[in-house]
């Protein structure tokens, strides 16, 4: 079964359906896509090259924007995209909240 899911045809990120290794070739909309990093279930992968500042689309709607250029097949998460509403906070090992992407 396929490893990536494109929820809407308008999306520029696909969703990993299980743990997928870096360097593996996946099929997305009939085209091959080579993963740049390992991804796990639910992670986002760039479906094509994205420019810095470009709107990220999932479910066919904007979910934030790229903070730098992203290559097709790259994992898309806190390190290369941000919210266009409110910053996302993650819990670091020392239990301080660190705002991401802003």
């Amino acid at each position: 079964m396929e490893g990536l899911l494109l929820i809407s045809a308008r999306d520029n990120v696909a969703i990993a359906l299980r743990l997928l290794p870096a360097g593996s070739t996946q099929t997305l909309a009939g085209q091959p896509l080579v993963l740049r990093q390992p991804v796990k279930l639910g992670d986002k992968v760039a479906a094509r090259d994205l420019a810095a500042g470009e709107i990220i689309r999932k479910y066919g709607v904007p979910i934030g924007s790229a903070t730098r250029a992203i290559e097709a097949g790259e994992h898309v998460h806190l390190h290369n995209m941000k919210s266009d509403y409110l910053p996302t906070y993650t819990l670091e090992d020392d239990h301080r909240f660190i705002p991401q992407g802003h």
Partner: protein
Amino acid sequence: MILTDQAYLRPDGAKGIRNQLLVVYLVECAHHVAREIAFPFRQRGVQLAGFGGCYPNEYSFKMLRALCTHANVGAVLLVSLGCESFDRKHLRQAIEAAGRPVHTLVIQQTGGTRRTIAEGTAWVEATLAGLAQTPRTTMRLDELIVGTVCGGSDATSGITANPGIGRAFDRLVAERATCIFEETGELIGCEQIMLNRAVNPELGEILRASVEKAAKYYTIMGHGSFAPGNAEGGLTTLEEKSMGAYCKSGDAPISGLIKPGDVPRGGGLYLLDVVPDGPPRFGFPNINDNAEIAELIACGSHLILFSTGRGSVVGSAISPVLKVCANPETYRNMSEDMDVDAGRILEGRGTLEEVGTEIFAHCLRVARGGETASELLGHQEFVLTYKSFEPIGPACHPTYH
């Protein structure tokens, strides 16, 4: 469609799917005594709820009034310390007016902890006998109110469990049942799409304004409705989480906007606005998932559909909580806590349609008395905090005459 002929008929005409006796503390200082009264009866439908604050608050009064007169509640024991601000007299009168047996114990008047526990225990024992005689009646599906909430969301929630609940909601609304979704703070980014689903443009504007209010409120608080575990679970932004959460509402037209304690009339789909009005005064709108569940129940929800990806275990006092697990790995790890394995879609073991049908079937099963996983495990979490709201206007509920 006839749902059951075994619903509990209350003297005010309300029809419940559970027959709970609620022990309610009116300030944290009475919590221990109330818990000691309720705990030995926990297998017999006696549950604990209450409000911890000592300062008066209109919202918390409205919430407890709605919860103590909920269709699933057959009798109420109020436990007061005696010097707190809560208006226990008017709460008791409202419960009496709804025809439920009610008794108030004031610890300072009864003579302390031990005597109050003894009196409370005796009242519960005697009242349970009467509660067992509650008349049963026929209840149609269009008399059922179902709320939905998500908690411990991850990137699978928006692909499996939430759209699965959306399909079940569409079936319920088609049968003229009442469905409630909530957390305007988790709809930030969805406002333009959502307003087009309102039954009229005026309501669409009210829906949009409610999400704008949430965005402003959360900006002042400095946190969105987004926990660190959400990011570990593959969600990156608040609006990504929002879109995933939004699909719980399905595709039906939105019939109205309600606030905590408002019970919608006439079937259909409603948005519950949980974000306080005015400038932030009491902190985060809802400090955890159970605060939202309590509000859905205060709006009349007979049962709650709870979508989780990371794996939540909570239940609730008053109304059963049904777990729809979005993530197949979480399901394997915590299957005893889950009712529906929606994540199986991701492994090719089912379709979204099948999951929606299964959730709908569970609603009927639970409404007919079948227990949920969280009920079987004894979960009865409850929390109520301070808030302030302006009342809704007629434009918020245009179908109600």
